[in-house]
């Protein structure tokens, strides 16, 4: 039987945390996604979310097989460390025949294979590993909600405060460097913010919706926004809409949450591009192509 609005309201206590997580993580990742899309690094969040999965798996392994306890083996810390390690590796400039796409693929595959292999040794926690890989926004722990809120607040503050430098360095990195902007620091800051948000949100919501939040709302926003600041705001709104709308779709349609959130974000992106192409059929120039 299809659940009704009354059922939803009656279970609000249960749904509040996952909806809040979806809303806030969607908005923060949506905003960061503008930089991910502009830097042609759309698979970075996929690679980082897999690295977060491996970090969680290794933390459980350390607890179960090495008998370690305490903060040092907290799965969130494991996820953050592995994500930061992967992000710093991906920050390196590609050299010779090693392309950034190749590095992203390597990070994704090593992290995925590592997670599955470590997962076979921690069968007690297999449910957690599955949840991380494929997403489970149905129930979110209050502690995860708190961490998502704290991380998102840091990300919002950084992006709003540094937005002019971040945008300049994305549009014309050489021009920004010539004007003395700290482009390396700006690049690390944005990668650090992505790593933080992806690691925390992956633990709470799963890899699939995190990947979707960090790509699709930004694509939609870039299609419609007249200015870079407008794109950041619009991407945050679309991300939040994807997080909440996806949860509602999952509840009323009895679908998996992560997949529903991804679908709503995808519909927003497709809709935004349809509007843009409808308004100006020749203006497909914002579809991201490889840099010359």
């Amino acid at each position, binding site marked *: 039987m299809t659940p009704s609005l009354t059922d939803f309201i009656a279970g609000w206590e249960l749904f509040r945390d996952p909806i809040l997580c979806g809303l806030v993580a969607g908005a923060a990742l949506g905003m960061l996604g503008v930089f991910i899309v502009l830097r042609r690094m759309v698979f970075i969040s996929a690679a980082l979310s897999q690295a977060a999965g491996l970090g969680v798996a290794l933390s459980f392994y350390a607890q179960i097989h090495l008998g370690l306890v305490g903060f040092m083996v907290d799965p969130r810390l494991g996820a953050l460390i592995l994500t930061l390690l992967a992000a710093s590796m991906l920050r390196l400039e590609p050299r010779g025949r090693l392309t950034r796409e190749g590095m992203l693929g390597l990070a994704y595959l090593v992290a995925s294979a590592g997670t599955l292999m470590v997962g076979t040794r921690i069968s007690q926690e297999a449910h957690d590993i599955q949840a991380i890989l494929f997403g489970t926004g149905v129930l979110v722990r209050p502690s995860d909600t708190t961490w998502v809120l704290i991380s998102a607040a840091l990300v919002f503050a950084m992006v709003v405060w540094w937005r*002019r*430098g971040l945008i300049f360095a994305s549009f*014309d990195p050489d021009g920004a460097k010539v004007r003395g902007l700290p482009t390396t620091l700006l690049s690390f800051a944005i990668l650090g913010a992505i790593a933080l948000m992806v690691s925390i949100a992956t633990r709470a919501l799963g890899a699939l919706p995190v990947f979707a939040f960090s790509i699709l709302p930004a694509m939609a926003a870039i299609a419609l926004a007249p200015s870079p600041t407008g794109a950041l705001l619009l991407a945050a709104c679309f991300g939040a809409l994807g997080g909440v709308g996806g949860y509602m779709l999952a509840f009323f349609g009895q679908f998996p949450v992560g997949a529903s959130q991804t679908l709503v974000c995808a519909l927003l992106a497709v809709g935004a591009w349809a509007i843009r192409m409808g308004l100006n059929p020749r203006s497909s120039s914002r579809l991201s192509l490889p840099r010359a």
Partner: protein
Amino acid sequence: MITRTNPLPQTKAVLSTESLSVGYGGVPVLPPLTFSVRPGELWVLAGRNGSGKSTLLRTILGLLPAVGGTLTRPPSTSIAYLPQVQSLDPIVPMRVWDIVAEGVESGWSFLKPWITADQKQRISEALTRTGTESLAKRSFVELSEGQKQRVLLARALASSPELLLLDEPTSAMDLKAEEEAINHIADLRRELGTAVILVSHHLPAAIKAADHILFVDAEHQGVAAGGVREVLADPIFHRQFAGLTGDLCVDMLKDGHRHDA
């Protein structure tokens, strides 16, 4: 090969090099260059494709480390760079105003939450000076190539530069537009006293407006830096660009160039 400094000791150089060697991974691609650029001078950086122009330009801009020698700029020198339009990312949703506003950024200025009234004034003046004020709310990507170049020039001027480097700003223009653009740049440097280094391989119009030429040729390991007339007389330059400069070279060498003191 000729490598000379230009003789104007009374004004302080905004850029000086002494046996500057440029290249990649410690390997020089050009012989060492020595030259000084002073306020109000217009230098043309000339050379064929693959001649080392971009390597030298990127080294002057501080985007590449020098392989050897010295490159000196007074610490407070405001430097602006007008890149090739193709190097800018077309998917960033930038309005003309957003781009020109980047010109007032310097160092950590982006940490201030809002653009100040003084900065707004500089942006507005730069738009007016380049005739782009009516485009301010337009999307950059939808402008013509000539309009884009004017917008990028406005961005460079908004930074009140003492040294302005332009990377082939007329590459997408027809001959008439190119001549107008170069004359406009020449007028601006006279009016504002800005030193200009203009990369171009459309030489006739650029040479007519220039005081000095920086000529580079990685293939034949030739470099020349100096007044227009002396560089025009350099055999490698002559051989490389005889077809491109045509009668202009001959006329200038015969009559003497107006800028050569």
